[in-house]
């Protein structure tokens, strides 16, 4: 297959073609006009080969160049005109070139041989090209086995032509007749298959109509000119009667084909417009659906929508009436000024309820104009809703001036485009949202980064106090904060806080809160006063919606005293002697109210620590952790777990709690930050019994231990 189409094969075909022509020429030159059956057959065989090679060359050429059917038909017209001229003037030309044609035919010389061979070649080329074009048009129909149908027909042409030469006796003429009849039947059968014209536009069809009648007539005229006993048939017959017959048969086929083509095109003409419209609609839709995925700019899309709507609905103008935050605006005007479209918009909004329109409607304005005072230049409108998330966001309007109606096709086309516009807008929205989401995620990354830097990266270490802290950030940064402050003379200050709100703003407040506690803890001795100071700062800096819940405490390791104050934060839990106590001194959240009122309402709680006291600080991320039934982890459950784990070390206990919380909320995403700080106190007597060392082993923090000795 590949060989056939390669350049090599073309060259081979051309070489073989040339050899066959030279052979024919030589045979004719040497033998002259002979009645010998051998030479007759030899000539026929050579002619068949010449035709075959020419056909193959043409097929190769044809398959490599994609051609429009119409231009092929046009070529055929030109070729026929040339053939017509050649046939008509062959008498004149040959007689002027050669003195005595009749004599020449019977007694050919060198010049005559050259001329006659050229003449035959012209007609072989002629029928070869005609066959190729008709074959191409026939294959365009895309029917099964098209090539076989066509080749069968050509085979019968050849058989009919050959039989006319070799079965000359009267008794055998039925053979030729039979082949001829079958050939004609096949011609008619094949000529009916011309569905390819359906895909032509109206203009092209009119063009084809003219062309086909001309070509059909030319074929018929050529057929008439050649069938007589003129110089044409004399020359061809001198080679072989078959070639003459074959040319005639092909001409007949051409005449029938174009005759049928003419009438079929004629009958297709009335529907051509509807077909054109459908074709345009389909191609517009294709174009538009491609556009939807590529163009995400709403204005560009709007322009395209009205542009295509205008074309497909054959309207005089098109535009979009868009509702933008309770205001109606006009978009993407096509063939209409803003003044006219806005006038018309007013009339539309008077006639229909914008939100209620749910399918394409036509509105006649011819009677409306006088009533309203506002005159529209249009008489008929088609109005289609453009929806987004179930709501009418805009109207796609196509308008016609007087005397024109919308066909059902046009209306459905407009409706289709309004639907497409809806999809496009939805797409644009989704894109916007995803960009926004990405921005938010970037923001959250920043917030997480801030939070990570703010929180302590390790706990201080004391020989008689185990400290364990766990922080689990939520996807959306929650604003949890905790910190430790190593104060003078074996005193440990600690704070736990939760900024209201989430995200980057919460993270910034957190940073501010850290700064406040860092500095206040250095200068102020009592937890209550630190919180009062923090409140007066935050009340001035935070906006009225934002506040911070916090608890601040100091553990005096020397005197074994815990002093704690609370500002709106979750209670502090103290587990002692098989009992869990809530330490919940009064106190309002930071940043909510003025210093005076805050000061009035804040209390301080002080307790003498005992050995094995466990102090638990937490944020509501733990107690408000939710399971798949949206149930809270809850205070009670939390207390129970603490109670069960009261004999564990601080680190073990916090592990246990985190494990329980994670298990509980495994099917529900963590909504808030989780912060848990546990202190476990061991009295001085137990200082050297390994608790401290065990703690150090757990953390592996030698550095901190050495630094604690300074205090």
């Amino acid at each position, binding site marked *: 297959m590949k060989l056939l189409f390669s350049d090599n094969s073309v060259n081979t075909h051309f070489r073989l073609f040339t050899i066959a022509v030279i052979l024919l020429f030589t045979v004719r030159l040497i033998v002259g006009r002979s009645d010998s059956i051998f030479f007759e057959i030899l000539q026929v065989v050579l002619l068949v080969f010449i035709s075959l090679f020419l056909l193959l060359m043409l097929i190769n050429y044809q398959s490599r160049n994609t051609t429009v059917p119409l231009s092929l038909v046009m070529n055929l017209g030109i070729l026929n005109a040339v053939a017509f001229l050649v046939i008509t003037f062959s008498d004149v030309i040959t007689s002027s070139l050669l003195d005595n044609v009749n004599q020449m035919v019977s007694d050919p010389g060198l010049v005559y041989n050259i001329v006659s061979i050229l003449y035959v070649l012209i007609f072989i080329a002629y029928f070869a090209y005609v066959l190729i074009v008709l074959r191409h048009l026939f294959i365009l129909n895309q029917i099964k086995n098209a090539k076989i149908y066509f080749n069968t027909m050509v085979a019968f042409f050849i058989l009919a032509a050959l039989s006319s030469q070799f079965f000359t006796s009267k008794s055998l003429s039925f053979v030729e007749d039979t082949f001829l009849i079958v050939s004609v039947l096949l011609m008619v059968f094949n000529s009916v298959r011309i569905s390819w014209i359906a895909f032509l536009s109206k203009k092209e069809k009119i063009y084809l109509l003219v062309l086909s009648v001309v070509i059909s007539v030319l074929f018929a005229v050529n057929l008439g000119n050649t069938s007589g006993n003129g110089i044409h048939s004399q020359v061809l017959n001198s080679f072989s009667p078959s070639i003459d017959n074959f040319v005639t048969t092909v001409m007949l086929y051409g005449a029938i084909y174009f005759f049928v083509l003419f009438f079929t095109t004629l009958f297709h003409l009335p529907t051509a417009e509807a077909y054109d419209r459908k074709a345009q609609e389909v191609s517009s839709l294709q174009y538009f659906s491609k556009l939807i995925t590529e163009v995400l700019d709403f204005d560009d899309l709007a322009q395209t929508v009205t542009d295509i709507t205008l074309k497909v609905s054959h309207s005089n103008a098109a535009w979009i009436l868009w509702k933008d935050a309770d205001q109606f605006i006009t978009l993407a005007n096509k063939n209409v000024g803003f003044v006219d479209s806005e006038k018309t918009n007013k009339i539309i909004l008077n006639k229909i309820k914008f939100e209620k329109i749910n399918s394409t409607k036509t509105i006649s304005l011819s009677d409306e104009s006088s009533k309203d005072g506002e005159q529209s230049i249009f008489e008929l409108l088609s109005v289609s809703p453009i929806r987004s998330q179930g709501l009418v966001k805009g109207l796609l309007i196509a308008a016609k001036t007087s005397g024109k109606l919308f066909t059902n096709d046009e209306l459905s086309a407009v409706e289709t485009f309004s639907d497409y516009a809806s999809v496009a807008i939805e797409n644009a929205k989704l894109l916007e949202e995803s960009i926004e989401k990405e921005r938010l995620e970037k923001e959250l990354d920043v917030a997480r980064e801030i939070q990570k830097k703010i929180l302590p990266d390790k706990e201080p270490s004391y020989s008689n106090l185990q400290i364990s802290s766990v922080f689990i950030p939520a996807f959306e940064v929650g604003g949890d904060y905790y910190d430790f402050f190593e104060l003078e003379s074996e005193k440990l200050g600690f704070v736990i806080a*939760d*900024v*209201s*709100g*989430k995200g980057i703003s919460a993270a910034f407040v957190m940073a501010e809160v850290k700064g406040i506690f860092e500095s206040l803890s250095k200068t102020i001795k009592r937890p209550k006063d630190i919180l009062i100071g923090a409140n007066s700062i935050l009340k001035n800096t935070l*906006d*009225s*919606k*934002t*506040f911070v*819940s916090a608890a601040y405490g100091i553990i005096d390791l020397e005197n074994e005293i815990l002093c704690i104050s609370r*500002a*709106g*934060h*979750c*209670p502090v839990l103290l587990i002692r002697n098989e009992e869990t106590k809530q330490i919940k001194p*009064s*106190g*309002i*959240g930071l940043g*909510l*109210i003025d210093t005076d*009122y805050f000061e009035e*309402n804040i209390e301080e709680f002080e307790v003498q620590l005992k050995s094995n006291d466990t102090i638990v600080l937490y944020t*509501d991320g733990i107690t408000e952790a939710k399971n798949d039934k*949206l149930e*809270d982890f809850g205070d009670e459950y939390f207390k129970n777990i603490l109670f069960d784990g009261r004999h564990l070390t601080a680190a073990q206990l916090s592990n246990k709690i985190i494990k329980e919380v994670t298990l509980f909320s495994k099917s529900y995403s963590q909504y*808030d930050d989780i912060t848990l700080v546990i202190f476990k106190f061991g009295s001085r007597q137990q200082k050297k019994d390994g608790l401290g060392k065990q703690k150090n082993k757990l953390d592996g923090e030698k550095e901190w231990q050495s630094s604690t000795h300074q205090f």
Partner: protein
Amino acid sequence: MAEFNTSILDKGNVSVINLKGYLDAHTAPTLENNFTQLIGNNRFNIVVNFNELAYISSAGLGVFMAYIEKIRENSGDIKLSNMSEKVYNIFDLLGFPLLYEIYKTEDEAVNKFTR
């Protein structure tokens, strides 16, 4: 989860806002709009009914703080009613009972204004 809506009912010179669903950072703007609207209409006597509120986050609590000053300046108030125990605990932790009057029933809260 983020289901939240409100309805406003006028009872004489008192406006009652009924809350329903989950009030958090994402749904808070709905309630903020309610307050802005009431203040815009010079209705400063407001009762918020928590009967159908399932959950309130810290950001939800912030909404009440944002408007209380302006309302009290205009000798009005926000009173809260019908809180579930869970919601009350959240308010209580933050010390809100010190800042707002909280009543068991809506009528009780409304009557406090009319008296």
